[in-house]
């Protein structure tokens, strides 16, 4: 079911004098205060945020910090399987997980367009709260700006995140080694197709849902046991193909993918056939590519499969020194072709 504005009886919309976002909601005055206190503190509050200061005071870490930032401009803002709110939390949480870090603190900045229904903002903020709870992160600081009608597109969100790198790990695309295997935690291309199916002007519907979810719990479990993991990468924009090409280029290794091991749901495959898309290039928001020595693959797969977001985990390829810098695909009919980096835009504004 689509996650559009729907209001649970136990969670009424905070009392507001206005039904829509006004320029004044970003003006720093009473309206801004109302938004922060009645909506943001109510849903996202914690000891750091509630101090209401210009910035957050955070405890010092024991080890190395990881820091990341991402902006979210997805269109439409509500889509099957999620909305721009949980996407903004999951995206930044997953970027930290890709660094081998346990995510702790998130900053949250909104750019709202005048006229955005307060109901929709409330729905998004509730999703943010739920996604943050699920990932075990705190929203510790934030900002709200409002731009005039027609100067933005309803809502843009920026999140930055701080995490603590799990000791003993050394994760990066350049660490990929011949003899490693490529693992992914499930089917590909669900997010991009879910978005496209809801795009205005595209009279085409499927039951595909976005895979947006946080992957940090699964990653932390894996890294707790296997410090040998070489690469973690979430294949978002540009899909599986682009993420793996970047890894091959950085490490000067070659990756051979096995087409019959890569899961693509029937609905996604059907949509791709109709639209002329290649699922290898379509965005994911709840997938993690993991590259590790072959001998650890079974153990890593066991851990992944014990998490709901990793139940369909599989080895989909292997790394070698052949064709350095290139990704190849062994097709289902037994031939081999290269899988190039995406060129130009295939689907704009998918995250």
């Amino acid at each position, binding site marked *: 079911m689509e996650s559009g504005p729907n209001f649970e009886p136990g969670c009424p919309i905070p009392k507001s004098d206005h039904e829509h976002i006004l320029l004044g909601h970003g003006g720093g005055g009473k309206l801004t205060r109302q938004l922060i206190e009645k909506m943001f503190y109510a849903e996202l509050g914690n000891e750091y945020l509630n101090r209401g200061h210009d910035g957050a005071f955070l405890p010092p870490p024991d080890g190395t910090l990881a820091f990341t930032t991402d902006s979210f401009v997805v269109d439409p803002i509500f889509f099957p399987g999620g909305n721009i709110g949980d996407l903004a939390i999951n995206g930044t949480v997953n970027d930290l997980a890709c660094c081998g870090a346990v995510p702790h603190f998130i900053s949250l900045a909104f750019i709202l367009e005048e006229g955005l229904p307060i109901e929709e903002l409330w729905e998004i903020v509730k999703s943010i709260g739920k996604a943050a709870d699920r990932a075990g992160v705190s929203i510790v600081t934030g900002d709200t700006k409002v731009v005039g009608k027609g100067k933005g597109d309803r809502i843009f969100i920026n999140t930055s995140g701080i995490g603590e790198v799990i000791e003993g790990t050394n994760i990066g695309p350049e660490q990929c080694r011949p003899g490693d295997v490529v693992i992914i935690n499930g089917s590909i291309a669900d997010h991009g197709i879910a978005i496209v199916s809801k795009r205005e002007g595209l009279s085409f519907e499927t039951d595909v849902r976005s895979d947006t979810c946080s992957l940090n719990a699964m990653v932390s479990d894996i890294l707790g046991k296997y410090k040998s993991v070489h690469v973690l990468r979430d294949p978002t924009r540009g899909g599986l193909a682009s993420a793996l090409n970047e890894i091959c280029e950085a490490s000067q290794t070659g990756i051979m993918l096995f087409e019959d091991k890569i899961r693509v749901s029937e609905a996604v495959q059907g949509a791709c056939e109709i639209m002329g898309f290649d699922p290898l290039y379509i965005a994911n928001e709840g997938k993690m590519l993991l590259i590790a020595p072959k001998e650890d693959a079974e153990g890593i797969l066991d851990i992944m499969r014990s998490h709901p977001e990793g139940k369909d985990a599989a080895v989909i390829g292997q790394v070698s020194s052949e064709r350095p810098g290139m990704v190849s695909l062994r097709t289902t009919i037994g031939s081999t072709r*290269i899988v190039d980096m995406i060129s*130009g835009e295939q689907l704009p504004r998918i995250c």
Partner: protein
Amino acid sequence: MKHLDEYRDKELVDKLIRQIGKQLTRPWTLMEICGGQTHSILKYGLLDLLPKEITMIHGPGCPVCVTPVELIDKAIALAMREETILASFGDMLRVPGSTSDLLEVRAGGGDVRIVYSPLDAVHLAAENPEKQVVFFAVGFETTAPAVALAISRAEAKKIDNFFVLVAHVLVPPAIKALLSNPDIRIDGFLTAGHVCTVMGYEEYIPLAAEYQIPMAVTGFEPVDILLGIQKTVHMLEHGIVEVENAYPRSVKKEGNLKARELLNQVFESGYRNWRGIGNIPQSGYYLRERYKRFDALTLPGIAGIHASESEHCIAGEILTGIRKPHECSAFGTLCTPEKPHGAPMVSSEGACAAYYRYNRVN
């Protein structure tokens, strides 16, 4: 996935490859006419699997690739007018004109829209009565019926702000032009299954007879393509010159009679300049007199536009199969999908783009 997996089945593929190999007594050169087939051949790595005696030449069957620069320049000029909404299929937006492309026009403030059906452009016209909506109609006989339908709908609904820039091209005249060229040596043809779904294959029978060349109506999945090759090789090895239907699940001999009637009602054929190839008689669609008021060429500001090609591009030789994409000195260096010098590198069905994407190392 049903209706797809069985045509991508490894056992069937292996069986067809063995059958092709068994009947071979000498090398043969075949041309697949359609860019969709070229794309499949490269995407599924069929060149790796085929016996070495079979040489596949990739024909001019990418309508985006053969659209003359002049028409693209005219589309660009129209899109830059404040009163225009220009709509086309996504592939067309990146095709380079003389100095720009439609994506750049959009970035510069032009109203350029991607549509998935020509009827969407008619809806755009109905919703924006103060604008002139121009649909840039590109394609072979396959997509032309939808354009004809859009025009007849616009006529019926009295929508007078809908225009079409017609760049439709026809396959049989192009095959005739290829076969008349003494530099091109082809033993057999795979004709384009989608085109034949609309038009049937009656008009290919006299072509096969005149040039003594066997043809197989061929689909787009690996099994379809190999079946087309197998049938063509069989005819060649046995001295048979016929047009065989290797895509009967989609193609009837007479085609889609309703679509053909609509095409005939809206369009007439005439000379068309093919990018990189030149003028081919009777190879382009033009609007009949009754529909001339929908012709975007009648809009002001585009009459004096003439165009030039990149000096690096050997599109003509690529599109006629005289040279392979990687034999071009600009391939992969000066000319890439990010910075294309010629149309075969731009369209997803272009031979250069297919080689760059799937087969750069061979």
